[in-house]
């Protein structure tokens, strides 16, 4: 009797220890299993498996029309998987949505919309607190903090249509951050801005990575490999590699063409 009594607690202790261990860094915040998706007869994603751990900074690269944006839309729950399944923070994407901060590739709004930067960023507070009436003072405080974090506080009163590409990206990043996300998802955040600003934005993301898991899509594998911790290459199917493994052979397999790898240090 007594050995079993002794064993039982020690077993549950080791169990709870391993659970606690997996609950910290190694627990996946995004788990994609055997995911398939097609638009009509055109398969975009086939058998995609991807696990992203808490605290990762993952770069998702691949050719145009390789399914990058589609994969993001599936993870965000804007599209539903046709085969396989996705778990975000252990739940279906639609239920985990509000824990995600999303920065789109192209602004999906008209540039001449009569709205200030502050109002745009305030929209990131939707879904927190009461749904009725106007924003609370706490929301405005959070907006100022988010704008300060992306170094764009001075833009708050500006009309959204008057911003440059780089300024707009910072504002969209603030809109994603102000909702207190656990995961930040960015679709080509630097597609429309010049390279110096691109570097600034990735420096900013690297700082944010201290508290957030980040998934960033880019077509520029050479550039992002200097910042991200891991690169996932997507062209209908997925091949995962560490940053160091990005070489000519991989690029060739991915793009079916010779791509000149640009060596650069950060």
């Amino acid at each position, binding site marked *: 009797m007594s050995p079993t009594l002794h064993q039982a607690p020690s077993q549950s202790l080791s169990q709870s220890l391993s659970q606690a261990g997996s609950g910290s860094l190694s627990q996946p915040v995004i788990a994609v299993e055997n995911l398939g998706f097609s638009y009509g007869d055109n398969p975009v994603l086939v058998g995609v498996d991807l696990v992203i751990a808490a605290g990762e900074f993952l770069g998702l690269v691949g050719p145009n029309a390789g399914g990058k944006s589609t994969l993001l839309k599936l993870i965000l729950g804007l599209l539903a998987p046709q085969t396989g399944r996705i778990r975000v923070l252990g739940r279906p994407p639609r239920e985990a949505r*509000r824990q995600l901060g999303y920065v*789109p590739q192209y602004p999906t709004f008209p540039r001449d919309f*009569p*709205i200030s930067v502050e109002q745009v960023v305030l*929209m990131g507070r*939707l879904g927190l607190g009461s749904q009725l009436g106007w924003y609370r003072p706490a929301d405005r405080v959070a907006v100022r903090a988010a704008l300060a974090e992306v170094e764009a506080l001075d833009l708050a009163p500006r009309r959204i249509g008057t911003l440059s590409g780089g300024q707009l990206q910072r504002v969209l990043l603030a809109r994603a951050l102000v909702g207190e996300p656990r995961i930040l998802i960015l679709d080509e955040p630097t597609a429309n801005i010049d390279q110096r600003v691109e570097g600034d934005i990735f420096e900013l993301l690297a700082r944010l990575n201290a508290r957030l898991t980040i998934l960033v899509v880019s077509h520029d594998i050479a550039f992002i490999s200097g910042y991200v911790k891991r690169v996932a290459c997507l062209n209908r199917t997925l091949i995962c590699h560490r940053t160091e493994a990005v070489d000519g052979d991989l690029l060739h397999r991915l793009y079916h063409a010779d791509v000149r790898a640009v060596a650069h240090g950060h």
Partner: protein
Amino acid sequence: MSEFITALTDHAFLRTALLAGLLASIGCGVIGTYVVVKRIAFLAGGIAHSVLGGMGAALYFGFDPLLGALIAALVSALIIGGVRLAWSAQEDTLVGALWAIGMAVGILFIAKTPGYSTDLMSYLFGNILLVPQRDLWLMAGLDLALVLTVALFYRQFLAVSFDEEFARLRGVPVTFFYLLLLCLVAVTVVLLIQVVGLILVIALLTLPAAVAGHYVHSLGGMMVIATLLGIGFTSGGLALSYTPDLPAGPTIILLAGAVYVASAVLSGLLTRRRARRLAQRPVPAAMPAVGGILGPAGPNP
């Protein structure tokens, strides 16, 4: 004009007409702003025209035509919204079809209504002078419903108008609020039919807000200015039409149209002048850093 003001003190129907214009302006200012920024004028036109189906049916079956209009407007708003959500690829074709089908249904009902013939023109082009006193109460009630709904869900309507995808990601029920917005457009259409008729509705739903949009850059500001402009257009049109005995509806629309064209030209000129002044300004504050780097290399001694 002074003749109009004298007439105003003499005739109760003119005061009722003025009040009807004022009540309609609240709807056209608040909801017209959404129609303009969300660019759904064509959908609003479809809703407005298919309302004739409901008015005709109400007339045929002996109900209040305004009640028929309200029901028809809400039904067609939901159908048009559903069409846009389900078959967005053929949206314009389907809205155009509903537009014509609604009118055809209405005209058939009106043709088969015994003893009826005269009022068709006032449905199509409105007659602000014939608004009955009790309809003012209905209009005030509809205004109250509009303003309360917009005030309660201002954030959601703003998010859905600005960026549907992001609103959805923040947990806003986008489909619900989109359909609710179209229902508010339907209610506004019914408000405005009293004043300018269903064919001219679309002008009052877009022009005041569009003029406001030339000068203010916030949704709330546009709503206030558009409401004031709407009051100006309806009262001004009514006054202008009085002495030469013109139909009030078209006069109101022409006044609104003239102000819109003038304002578009003016705001275009202002924008160009501002751009020219910006271009002439000396180096902006942010630039000296670049000048500092280039400076030593620039003028070669």
